């Protein structure tokens, strides 16, 4: 039996204004609410609303047999409530169908897991509490920012008794001869099950869909459904296998424009899965795996951090260069001082700054996906982003001094 496990990520950061040294310590906000608002408005109209409506229709059309995971970060939730609450209503409707599982992550989409364990735990708790109070559900599956994972992350999550599943990248360097279509147990005493993204099938949609130089272009829903079903030949007939397709929800309508046919693809693909896979396939939510799986699992030993970023599947795009390391060190140092002082206002600013986007804008890794960098970053180069970020932290330091 093949279980198809789709999960879509939704995130937008709070963006910094372009600061000058003379803005430091002044009363004005350092965040660019106007820019945030215009982006949230655009992305909601182009992507979130049409994509979520299609997902809702798919659930209805297939009588609840179509299911998927969804994760919304805290900064996005806050901005949607301000600028486009209709998106939140749509998510609530989807949750009510019981065919949409909301995942847990760090509230601020941060890199706290790399720098500060206490802050990491705080942000995961804050996210779980926010999801519960807003949607009335308790997440049981965890996805870290950029699907960053290592044994250490499973260790840090051990205290969260309700989080039994962790999602991460099916990176070849950790799998070696193993396949990403089976669940694995976390290393050591950690009890969690790990679901691995099938990065080839995921990136065929998220990256290749509109690539006219790709030999499989154009990607039809039928062709894609067949590729998914081909995974079924990899195991025994009585075994449960998993096809984990994870990507940003912005893939639909934002990264790939409506005119590319991406929405039609999304509409048709589940129907074709059922048609081609017949009784050998079903859509499954991450948490349901705990009910399906009772056998022993191989242990996945991940010593070095992996992530879903670029083809290197490491953390070099967020924590690779010295600018990123120095600025994150400065951030977490100040964050701890704000905690000690109990300065809630400064804490909130620093936590907003902890979104991984700010580190990504400083990327200089030579393999860097420049198209993605240009899309996500609103700075002319890494050094300008670094300078601006240091100003922001220095600003908080001055407010606190």
């Amino acid at each position: 039996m093949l279980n198809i496990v789709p999960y879509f990520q939704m995130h937008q950061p709070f963006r910094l204004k372009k600061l000058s040294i003379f803005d430091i310590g002044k009363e004005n906000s350092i965040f660019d609410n106007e820019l945030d608002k215009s982006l949230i408005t655009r992305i909601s109209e182009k992507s979130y609303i049409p994509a979520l409506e299609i997902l809702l229709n798919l659930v209805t059309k297939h009588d609840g047999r179509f299911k998927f995971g969804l994760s919304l970060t805290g900064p996005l939730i806050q901005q949607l409530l301000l600028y486009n609450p209709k998106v939140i209503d749509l998510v609530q409707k989807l949750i009510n169908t019981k065919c949409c599982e909301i995942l847990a992550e760090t509230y601020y989409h941060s890199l706290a897991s790399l720098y500060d364990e206490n802050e990491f735990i705080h942000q995961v708790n804050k996210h779980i509490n926010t999801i519960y109070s807003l949607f009335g559900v308790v997440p049981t599956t965890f996805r870290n920012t950029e699907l960053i994972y290592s044994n250490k992350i499973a260790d840090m999550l051990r205290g969260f008794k309700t989080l039994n599943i962790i999602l991460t990248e099916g990176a070849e360097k950790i799998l070696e001869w193993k396949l990403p279509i089976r669940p694995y147990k976390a290393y050591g005493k950690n009890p969690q099950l790990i679901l691995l993204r099938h990065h080839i099938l995921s990136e065929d949609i998220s990256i290749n869909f509109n690539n006219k130089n790709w030999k499989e272009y154009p990607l039809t829903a039928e062709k894609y459904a067949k590729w998914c079903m081909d995974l079924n030949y990899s195991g025994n007939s009585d075994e449960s296998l998993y096809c984990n397709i994870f990507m940003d929800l912005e893939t639909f309508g934002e990264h790939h424009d409506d005119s590319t046919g991406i929405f039609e693809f999304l509409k048709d693909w589940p129907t074709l899965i059922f048609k081609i896979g017949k009784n050998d396939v079903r859509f499954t939510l991450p948490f349901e795996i705990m009910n399906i799986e009772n056998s022993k699992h191989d242990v996945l030993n991940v010593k070095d951090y992996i992530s879903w970023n670029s083809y290197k599947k490491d953390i070099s795009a967020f924590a690779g260069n010295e600018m990123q390391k120095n600025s994150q060190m400065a951030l977490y140092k100040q964050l701890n001082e704000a905690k000690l002082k109990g300065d809630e206002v400064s804490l909130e600013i620093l936590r907003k700054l902890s979104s991984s986007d700010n580190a990504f804008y400083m990327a200089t890794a030579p393999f860097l996906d420049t198209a993605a960098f240009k899309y996500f970053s609103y700075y002319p180069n890494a050094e300008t982003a670094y300078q601006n970020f240091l100003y922001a932290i220095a600003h908080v330091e001055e407010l606190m001094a």
Partner: protein
Amino acid sequence: MKVLFLTWEFPPFISGGLAMACYGMVKSLLKKGVEFTLVLPTSADVYFHLVKPEDADQLTPIFIDDKTKSEFEYSLNNSNISNIEFLKLLGVSETPETYLSSSDFVEFMSIERYFEVSNEINTKNILKEIKENILSSSGLFKKVREFSIKVSKIAKLVDFDCIHAHDWLCYPAGIVAANMSGKPLICHIHATEFDRSGGTGDERIHKIEYAGLSLADRVISVSNYTANIIVNRYRVDTSKIRVVHNAFHLKTDNGEKKRIFKDPVILFLGRITLQKGPEYFLEVAKRVIETYPLVRFIMVGTGDLAKRLIQKSAEYKLLTRFLFTGFMNREEVEAILSASDIMILPSVSEPFGIAPLEAMSFGIATIISKQSGVSEVVNNVYKVNFWDVEEMSNIILDLLSNPEKMREMGQKARQEVEKIQWDKSADLILKCYKELLCST
């Protein structure tokens, strides 16, 4: 007394040393009755006629011909723009470019005849060399060519008694104007290619500097330090060199500190290039922050080493204690000075160095490199070898732990700099103009 004044930089946009020196001497000489035809590397064909001291602040352009003027005014739909906006439209450059950044070669072009006026063999050869250099290149050399053409047009239109050209970018134009008009040429040297490159430098620029300084009737050097360089390296005839130190226009209202940071601020102000020694500033920062972390080191400026320094400072994990600002305009430079406590000028080779004078006028304790012209004119500063980061760190740590001493040092510096006024230096320049007029 009418002077054709050629410079690549002039305020309001550029706040570097060359611009401020030109502004200072022009303003003082205007007070002494000298009139100027000022030519800048504008993209529009204009010059500026300065008669009254205020004219130096309110640059009013004169178009070379009515046709360009009407075309320009036609393209300007709204005449209610500020003077600064207007100058921007004329194409006054906003960032300094006295050092070379690009040099692609293009086809031989049109102004060669301007260089074929001398009959003397030696001069002829030098002129041939520069002609080939500036005619065969693009980038900055192309701009030098365009500037020379423009100056040649203006030299026909206006009346002047002598030509005063600043640094190599203006020397070819100065030579052209002198040969066309038969009027004496003064080449003012603010920096040599040896200073800028910290080594051998660009041979094409050396040739232009050599030609300008050799052909000039007078050479004004901004310091003895630089006079020594041009005598030793270019064999300039010592009898025609005059040393005129730069000075400083004291602002009346720069008394009060407008702090940004609560902790003491240590400043670097200048281009981030090898000449200015920015790496020594970073090394000092690293040493000071290790023992005294509650400070801010701020690097103001831009240049080809900026990226490397940003990366290196991050590597040193100085957190937010070392900050970069990028390029700053005049107003911002004053604002950052009023927020600073200590300034370092760690230049490897500095013909003059006006920034320390300005820092001193803001009551800032100042550390300057011994390899600088400014060290010839001030005493209430710390003079160190540019490479001696230990010494600089020790001075800073001493000042940080003795705030009273730091304040006193700043006060003394301020009192001293009040005496270094353009008025005196302008007299020396005026004397130089007069000497030339008497001898012709």
